[in-house]
């Protein structure tokens, strides 16, 4: 009968197997990712997009490094510091990397204390993370100054291929901008945590929405991403 097609099926349909089951899970009711808030989903997708930006930058750098006919300057000599009377290769970069990775640790602890509603510790740890980040940017500024004093410019340098300087300033500059933005966000959100905005349901200035402690974790996602990107820059630019 025609009507039978319209009768509501009281029993829940059996879960489909195989690929159909996977598709059914992904396309399930209301939300594709259960227990993932809008903000967190948005940050993950943004980071995916940002991954493509950094990948394109790094691939472009590697391409120009391979196509240029002029020899590439030796990173362990260029990025060496003379401490005492010893020339130590990559020492500054090693310290910078250590600092940035440490900041991921304090960030993770901040997320933990945020979910425990420990406002003082969360805010303190976020500020510590921001301080690590600011130190990193400061050391990068020092490195830029040193190289510029030695004659490195985006359009040339004393030791070899001019793409060395251009790639260096472009990639570390773009990454440093990310770190700086992260520091600004960390400070802004640490202030909100400290003030207790998320306990009293105070509304955001621009969005007029109530914030949650989850924003600490979302900021953390961004921060860890920026760290992870640095590992690739470190490996592909400094160690290659």
């Amino acid at each position, binding site marked *: *009968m*025609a*009507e039978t*097609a*319209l*009768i*509501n*099926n*009281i*029993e*829940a*349909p059996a879960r489909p197997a195989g690929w159909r089951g996977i*598709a*059914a899970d*992904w*396309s*399930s*009711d*209301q*939300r*594709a*990712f*259960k227990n*993932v*808030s*809008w*903000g967190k*989903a*948005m940050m993950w*997708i*943004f980071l*995916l*997009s*940002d991954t*493509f*930006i950094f*990948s*394109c*930058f790094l691939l*472009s750098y590697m*391409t*120009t490094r391979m*196509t*240029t*006919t*002029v020899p590439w300057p030796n990173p362990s000599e260029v990025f060496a510091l003379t401490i005492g009377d010893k020339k130590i290769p990559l020492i500054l970069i090693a310290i910078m990397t250590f600092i940035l990775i440490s900041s991921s640790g304090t960030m993770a602890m901040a997320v933990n204390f945020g979910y425990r509603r420990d406002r003082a510790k969360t805010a303190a740890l976020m500020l510590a993370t921001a301080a690590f980040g600011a130190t990193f940017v400061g050391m990068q500024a020092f490195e830029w100054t040193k190289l510029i004093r030695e004659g490195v410019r*985006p*359009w040339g340098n004393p030791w070899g*291929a*001019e*793409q060395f*300087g*251009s790639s260096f300033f*472009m990639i570390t500059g*773009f990454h440093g901008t990310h770190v700086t933005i992260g520091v600004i966000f960390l400070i802004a959100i640490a202030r909100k945590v400290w003030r207790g905005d998320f306990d009293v349901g105070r509304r955001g200035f*621009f*969005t*007029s*929405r*109530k914030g949650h402690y989850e924003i600490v974790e979302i900021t953390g996602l961004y921060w860890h991403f920026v760290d992870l990107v640095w590992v690739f820059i470190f490996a592909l630019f400094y160690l290659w």
Partner: protein
Amino acid sequence: MVDVPFDTVAGVPPAEVGEVELYHPRSWWTRYVFSQDAKVIAIQYSITAMSIGMVALVLSWLMRLQLGFPGTFSFIDPNQYLQFITMHGMIMVIYLLTALFLGGFGNYLIPLMVGARDMVFPYVNMLSYWIYLLAVVVLASTFFVPGGPTGAGWTLYPPQAILSGTPGQDWGIVLMLASLILFIIGFTMGGLNYVVTVLQARTRGMTLMRLPLTVWGIFTATVMALLAFPALFVASVMLLLDRLLGTSFFMPTLVEMGTLTKYGGGSPILFQHLFWFFGHPEVYIVALPAFGIISDLISVHARKNIFGYRMMVWAIVGIGALSFVVWAHHMYVSGMHPYFGFFFATTTLIIAIPTAIKVYNWVLTLWRGDIHLTIPMLFALAFIVTFVNGGLTGLFLGNVVVDVPLSDTMFVVAHFHMVMGIAPIMAVFGGIYHWYPKVTGRMLNEALGRFHFWVSFLGAYAIFFPMHYLGLLGMPRRYHDIGETAFVPASAHDLNAFMSVAALIVGFAQLVFLFNLIWSLFKGREAGGNPWGAASLEWQTPETPPGHGNWGKELPIVYRWAYDYSVPGAAGDFVPQNEPPAGVLAQGAHP
């Protein structure tokens, strides 16, 4: 049975996300100008995109005047001709089509079709529009700066894009790249919103496999845009550095006007790879929303469920994925390795499979349907025909050996105008005629609409069909004046003149369309809430046009897919997505 059953909701699932408080405008400014309502943002996007699109339309007139009647219009010199070409291409592809499909249709339709009150982050959504507007203003400003806009061609290939022989080398290229960077930043803000809204903010009962195909098309295109625009972003930043700081990412050692430039060691091919890694997905960023819109138009206006919904979804996703591995088919003549060309020709031709699935499914949806030749349906049919046409010439250009002689001829111009110019524009028009009653509460004028359709459709063919022939003759593209050459017969010039006259007429038909948009806003026939008898959710809003928050007090609950037309036993000839099963049964049970 349909392969997506509409009666699987046993109990209504509980809401997983609580109601999120909306931003409530307090003044005229926050209601209509700095609005955070996706519907207002959609209209702002559409008006801005169509305004800058009119500029591109006028540029195409100027180009056609020069091509059709060379030497007659002394105010068009070769430099200006190149500038017209560049700006026409860039505006049409990015600032009109991408912005209109994703920013315009996406903003309006996604929240309504998935049953949400708004986009997930309205404030970010508003920023997206204002940055887009800034990008458009920066782009338009290049017409007024010293040296004028860049004439590098819409692909902006270095080294020529930033060398002194190219018009707009001073300001034009710099502002163009800045505008692109702004556009990408603005788009990313909107795009994140569209994706998260579709994935995480659907109403109860709205599984992904119950979404109208329009949402699937826009959603997939947005995901692709979020992954493809980064390549253009990086290419723009690096080209800007090459131009402003004198870096040599893309610039090899070369001699300019007899003197050695400061550049050296860069790779122009790298730019082509980056550009086309963006550029090819961009074709489908424009095409997939069109696919989705056309699927919905055909189903509604043929009063029949879409054929093979599940395959349609997988075809959209498959095309989206494949389009990331075909980019180098734009570079067969760049001197790349033949094996490379072989790989990219293969992947390119594989895309024909999901695309053909879609075309067959559209035709099978029409087959024995109750076809109403309304204006949206006419545009939908025109889309199918045009897209098939453009797709078939794509088979020629996708093969390396055929592409090499056809490269840089008018054949290429004809191909991409058919497949990603005319076809998506047909979908845009069809979509506007279809959804205008929901946006304004009034129907567009029927007679003006039919006039607009027939002139645009036939006119487009009058312009671009002969262009294939000119391309096969070997007439090159981007030439200001062909002059007297052995391989171009005199009759080709007559053909060019004919095409130019057709282009002028088609252009004027668009003015009729704009007039219709404005006239119908005040004088159009009252449409009511659901003039087409459509089943999808956006037609079931309590108010038309939908009010702030879209759904009144209660969010709708979805019981079935969006394509229940002519269901045997049901009372009406369509069953809305939010009609409870009991209601359908009660209506249907009575003889």
